[in-house]
Structure formats: C-alpha cells, structure tokens
C-alpha cells in the first residue's frame, strides 16, 4: 500500500527543463570540485568552496534524500502523523512545514559547526571541505532524517526510549548513561569556548554581561507589560544588543576596563553561578527571552555571512592540505588527518546530538510524513552550510596569525616575540609587529593563544564583513561575532543544564518517585547543582590545563558526539532490519560503519597511543615518570602543574574509554537482533498502527501547483464542515 503512495508521488519526471536545470547544477558542482582539487599554491577564491557545497547539497537533496524518502523509508502521506492524531495544541501540534524547519534548524545549529571547522583548518581547507560536504550528504543528514522518521512513527519517543524498547535494557541503559555523560562534556567544552573568548577582553565581557539584564527586561515585558508581543520585544532586544556591542567599545572611557578584565578562573565562577541560577529560575524570566534573541541573531548572522562572502569574494590564505595533516604534529590538536579531521568536525558533518532533537520535540509537530525529508535532511544541509562558512572564515586569515591565535599558551609564551618565533618553527611567518597590529585592529589587548575557535572565527568574519560592507568597523564586527557566538553558547548551556536536570530527575525518579517531580524545589535545585557541578568541574580542568584545554578536551567532545551518532545509527539499522528492509539497511549502515571506524580508531589512539601528545595514558605516564625523577616537563613550570597534567590526562583517558565501551555495548547488543531479524524477514516493533490521515499539506519547501489546489480544496471542505457544525 505504501508502495502505491510512492508510485502516486512519482510525478511525470525528466522534463527537458528539469534535465537542463539539474545538468547545469551538476556541471557547476563538478567544475568547483575540479578547481578545488587541482589548484595548489595559487590564489583560490573562497567562492569555489561555497558553490561546490551548494551544488552538492542541491543534488543530494533532490536525488538521495528523495531515494531515502520514497524507497528506503517509504514515507506515507495516507498515514496520520502524531501531530494530526493527538493534536492537543501543546506537545502535539500541527505546524507549518516551513515554520517547523525553522524551529528544527534553530534547535540543531549552535556553536558546534562554527568551532570544529575552525580548528580543523590547521590541516588545510580541503580535508575539512570534503568531510563536511560528503559527511553531511551520506551521514549527518541521513541520521537526522531517519531518526526523525522512526521517532515520528513512535509518537515522538526519545532516543533512549527507542534503544531500550527496540534493542534491549542493557543497550538502553548504556545509551542513557552515554547521552548524559556526553551532554556534560559538550556543555563543558562549549563553556570553555566562551571563557577563552571573553578572558582578558573587557569589551566582550561588557557586551555579554548586558545580555542578562536585556533578557530579564524582555522576560518581564512579556509577562507583565505586553504579554505575547514577542516580535515587538525581540526587536527591542536586538536593538539593545547592538547598543551593548557598540557600548563595549567605550569601556575604557567609562573607566570599566580594569573591572571587566577578567581572568579565566573568574569567568568559570561566573559561568557556573549563572548556569545554576538560570536553570532554576522560571523559564519566562531568562531562558525563553534569551532564546528569542539568540535565534534571531543566529539566523541573521548566517544570512549576513552568506551575503558577505558573495560580495567580498575573499581569497583563501590557507593551504589546501598542510603538513600537519600527514605528520600529525599540529599545535591546535594532535593527530593525523585520519581519524582526527573526522572527529574535530562533528557538527556540520555528523552530529549525534541531533538525534536527541530529531527524537524529541520535532517529530511531535510534523504535519505530514513526507515533510520529514525537508525538515530532517534539509535542516542538516543548512547546518552543514554554516560549517562551510566557518571553514572559509578561518581559511581567509593569514596563516601565521591563525597559528598564533590557536596554539596553546604553553607553546607561544603569550607574547608577540615568542609567538612569532614559535610560528616560524611551524613553517609560517608573522612578525611581532603584525601580531600586535592585528590585535589593535579589533581593539583587543592580544590575539595570541586565544584558543577555542571563537576569536579566530570572529576575526575571519570581521575581515569578510569589513571587505564586503566597507572598512573602519573591524572592531565592531569582531565583537559582534564574539557576541553572537557567546550568546548562543550561553543559551545552549542554560537549556542543556535544564535538560540534564530533567534527565537526572527522571532517572532518579524511577527509584524515588518524589524526586522525579520537576516542580519539587529540593529535587530541582539539587539536580541542577549536580549537573552544573559536573560540567563546571570539567570546565575548570580545561581552563587551568597547562597543555591547553581546547587541545586536550576538544577531541573528547568530537569523539563523544560521534559515538552518540553511532548509537543513533545503530538504532536506525536495527529498525531497518526489524521492519524487513534489510535490503536498504546500508543507508544508515554506511555512516554507522564510518562513524565506528573513525571514533574507534580515535578512541583507541587517545587511550593506547604511545605518543604522549595523543594518548592520554601515555601522557600521564610520561609526566608521572618525570615527576618521580624530580624533573619538570614543558609546558609545566612547577610540580603542581605536573600533578595537574597527570590528573587531567587520567580523567580524560577514563572518560574516553568509558564512552567507547558504552557505544560498543549498544552495538554488540544490537547485532544479534540484526541477525534474527534478517533471518526471519522482520521482527515486531513498537511502530504505531496506520491511521488514515485527512490533513492535506504540501511536502517540500515550495508547493507544486497540484499541491496548492489540493490544499485549497481541503480548506474549503473544512470550512463547509465547520459551517454545517455551526448550523446545528
């Protein structure tokens, strides 16, 4: 029956016009890829990357996502979605497809696709470009779409629930622990990015601090002054936000620069206190209004960046492939191209965290099954585009400057002379005067060792915007970019802390029901404190790590994010087998295999490598041995720092091993089910039975003529129905 639908959906294809259009897109894509592949050492325009990406996305969306939609998953518009069946207007809510696309995109895209590609740029622009584009087409977008589909067919069940019910209790528990632990790591690393961007930057601290009173004002406005006027208050909020960025340029004149020059440790305390307070305050006060602000800034900056790139047409300063890709000695993060490029760039190519969103709110709001394609696959393509833009922004910066910004303080010594010397040992050159001039151009004290990706990205964005929209505003654009990144990291941090708190309360609630009551203050407060305490602790370790927190923690973040993807894809493969679609199990199976190869290789190296720069335990042993002999190893300058490195390496190594073991547990408990299901041609699943859909709505971004007519006829029949009802 569902095959009938897929036949019906097949509109007369291959019209000459359609063949011409898609042929042209394919040619553009092929030319762009060829230029990228063949140019070496010449001035390559960033637009080649941009258009290679856009053409590839268009073709993948048109052909591959359609194949997944109608052959693999068999989306069936005769089936009512959970939103249509329950339609309570609260959790289950029929939402316009384009609006839901916006909501879904706002939920999946954050700082991840901005940070990973910036760090991966140390290996050149080509490896990152290829992985982001190929990865999203065959892995990331597939995962998001398939998880969304399976969750929708189960009334919007969460990833953890589905793993427990479809794979088993052991796998379910492993998945639950993995999700919680990975979330803590993600929050800590994101917070670390903010701390590194704001440390010693009074302008940044000034602007970001003001977002709190601005959000509070918006919250009170919506609660007491003019309830519900969200657009109005968001416009006011954005205007105040821009004033806050401009105002930051005058901190010196206001005599605040000393007060607002905060150390990393002070910022950690500030963030932890903020995270705790934000997660226990009523959401209307801080979280909801801040979310409006951050969403509008997010979309606004992405659109602006796309336009800026088109106008500025910057030239790539980065090499196609640097030596670090082959010898693995890069200062930003250690390890060779394989597997570490694929780990560093998670969001934008394949991000397991999205599986939590595709199996949460979104599936409960889909109007028609066929819309899963544009929301799941399309939403992830859009995030990938953000990642490509970030990669370009990092690759238009002078490479000497790039490495001065991104190498740990232990290597650069933190001052221009030593930094310039260090950069020259890497095979790049920049003079101390140029380093100082670059910092002055954006009115920052220094740019040396401002690791974490945010300052690099902001510098790249300010270059692009200054070139596109006229000069003289470099400092404004830099702080504008910092603000926008910090803003949505903070939103992710407070929303994430709340989600973590709910998960903890829910889990403990299984044993002690009272604790599961989310409105019971003692439970809410203690669970929040635990969550904040955990990420705050790891954040503190990262900030004080003599080896550089980003250098040490970012691989852990990337690997854990993709291990989560491996868990989600394992679920997808399991369900393909259970539904008797073994023939198409390769669709999620291919990215699963790839994710397991890269994450397991990376995990293995991080745990067992005999290179102390890569292997956490080897690092621990090296420093322990030196300490036992009474020696100091650089960059440690005293015994305390030696002990600190030893403790951090041990913790990182244990966490790394734990995540890998949890994932292996899920995969191993799924394999017997694959075998059984493949033998018997399918197994019962928790999919809800077919109920006929009466709703009519278009499937794709743009409605076809037939769809528009069908919608009109449907609306007319609904009106008549309402009319007859009213007449009684």
């Amino acid at each position, binding site marked *: 029956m569902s095959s009938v639908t897929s036949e019906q959906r097949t509109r007369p294809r291959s019209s000459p016009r359609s063949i011409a259009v898609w042929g042209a897109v394919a040619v553009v894509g092929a030319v762009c890829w060829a230029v990228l592949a063949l140019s070496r050492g010449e001035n390559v325009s960033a637009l080649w990357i941009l258009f290679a990406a856009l053409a590839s996305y268009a073709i993948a969306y048109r052909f591959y996502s359609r194949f997944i939609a109608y052959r693999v998953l068999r989306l069936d518009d005769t089936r009512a979605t959970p939103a249509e069946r329950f339609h309570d207007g609260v959790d289950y809510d029929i939402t316009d497809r*384009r*609006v839901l696309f916006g909501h879904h995109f706002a*939920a999946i895209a*954050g700082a991840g696709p901005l940070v990973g590609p910036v760090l991966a740029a140390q290996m050149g622009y080509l490896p990152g470009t290829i992985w982001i584009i190929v990865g999203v087409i065959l892995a990331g977008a597939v995962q998001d779409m398939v998880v969304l589909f399976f969750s929708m067919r189960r009334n919007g069940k969460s990833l953890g629930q589905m793993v427990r019910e479809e794979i088993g209790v052991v796998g379910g528990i492993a998945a639950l622990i993995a999700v919680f632990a990975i979330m803590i790591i993600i929050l800590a690393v994101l917070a670390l990015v903010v701390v590194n961007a704001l440390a010693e930057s009074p302008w940044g601290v000034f602007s970001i601090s003001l977002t709190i009173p601005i959000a509070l004002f918006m919250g009170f406005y919506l*609660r007491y002054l003019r*309830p*519900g006027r969200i657009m109005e208050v968001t416009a006011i909020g954005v205007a105040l936000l821009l004033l806050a960025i401009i105002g930051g340029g005058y901190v010196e004149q206001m005599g605040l620069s000393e007060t607002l020059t905060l150390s990393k440790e002070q910022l950690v305390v500030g963030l932890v206190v903020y995270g705790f307070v934000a997660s226990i305050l009523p959401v209307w006060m801080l979280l909801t209004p801040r*979310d409006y602000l951050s969403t509008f800034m997010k979309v606004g900056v992405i659109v602006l960046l796309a336009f800026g790139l088109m106008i500025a047409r910057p030239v790539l300063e980065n090499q196609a492939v640097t030596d670090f890709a082959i010898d693995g000695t890069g200062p930003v993060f250690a390890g060779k191209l394989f597997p570490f490029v694929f780990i560093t760039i998670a969001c934008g190519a394949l991000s397991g965290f999205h599986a939590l969103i595709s199996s949460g709110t979104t599936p409960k709001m889909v109007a028609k099954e066929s819309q899963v394609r544009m929301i799941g696959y399309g939403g992830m393509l859009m995030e990938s585009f953000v990642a490509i833009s970030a990669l370009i922004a990092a690759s238009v910066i002078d490479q000497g400057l790039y490495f001065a910004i991104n190498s740990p303080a232990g290597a650069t010594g933190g001052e221009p002379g030593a930094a310039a010397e260090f950069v020259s040992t890497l095979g790049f050159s920049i003079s101390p005067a140029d380093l100082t001039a670059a910092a002055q151009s954006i009115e920052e004290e220094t740019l040396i060792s401002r690791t974490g990706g945010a300052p690099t990205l902001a510098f790249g964005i300010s270059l692009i915007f200054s070139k596109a929209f006229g000069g003289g505003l470099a400092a404004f654009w830099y702080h504008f970019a910092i603000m926008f990144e910090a803003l949505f990291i903070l939103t992710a941090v407070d929303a994430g802390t709340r989600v973590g708190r709910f998960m903890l309360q829910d889990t403990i609630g299984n044993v002690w029901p009272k604790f599961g009551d989310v409105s019971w203050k003692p439970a809410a407060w203690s669970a929040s404190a635990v969550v904040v305490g955990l990420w705050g602790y790891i954040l503190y370790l990262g900030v004080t790590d003599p080896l550089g927190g980003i250098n040490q923690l970012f691989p852990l973040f990337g690997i854990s994010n993709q291990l989560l993807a491996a868990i989600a894809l394992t679920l997808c493969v399991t369900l393909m087998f259970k539904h008797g679609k073994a023939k198409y199990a390769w669709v999620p199976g291919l990215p699963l295999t790839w994710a397991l190869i890269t994450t397991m290789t990376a995990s293995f190296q991080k745990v067992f490598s005999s290179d102390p720069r890569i292997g956490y335990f080897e690092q621990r042993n090296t420093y322990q041995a030196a300490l036992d002999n009474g020696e100091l190893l650089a960059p440690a300058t005293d015994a305390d720092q030696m002990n600190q490195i030893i403790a951090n390496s041990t913790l990182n190594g244990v966490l790394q091993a734990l995540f890998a073991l949890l994932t292996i547990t899920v995969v191993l408990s799924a394999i017997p089910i694959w075998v059984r299901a493949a033998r018997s041609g399918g197994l019962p699943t928790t999919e809800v039975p077919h109920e006929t859909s009466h709703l009519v709505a278009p499937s794709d971004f743009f409605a076809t003529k037939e769809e528009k007519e069908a919608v009109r006829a449907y609306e007319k029949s609904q009106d008549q129905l309402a009319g007859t009802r009213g007449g009684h």
Partner: protein
Amino acid sequence: MTVLTAFRGVRWYLKQFTGEAKWDEYLERCRAEGRKPTSRRDFERHRADHRERSTQSRCC
C-alpha cells in the same frame, strides 16, 4: 503588490515562528465555538507554565 505580498509573507512567518499566532488561532477557535476567550495575560501565562515543564534542548 509583490512587495506587499512578500511583506505579508515575512510577517506571517515571524508570527508563526515566534508563536504569536497561537493567540490569533485561539481567538479564531473561540469565535467558531461561540466561547468567551480568556484574557491574553492568562493565555500567555498558561503557555509559559507549560514551557516550564517541558524542555527543548539546544544543540552545539
């Protein structure tokens, strides 16, 4: 004409996206069913209370 259509489209989208349209839809429903609508303040408070109990994760 086309500018006006575009403007209407953007306004419609923003109203839907922010959830402001929920209030209009509620009024519409009340009118159709002949009920007396509650005040906007109470309506929005009810929505905020629901948000308090549910979570929406923001990804990385």
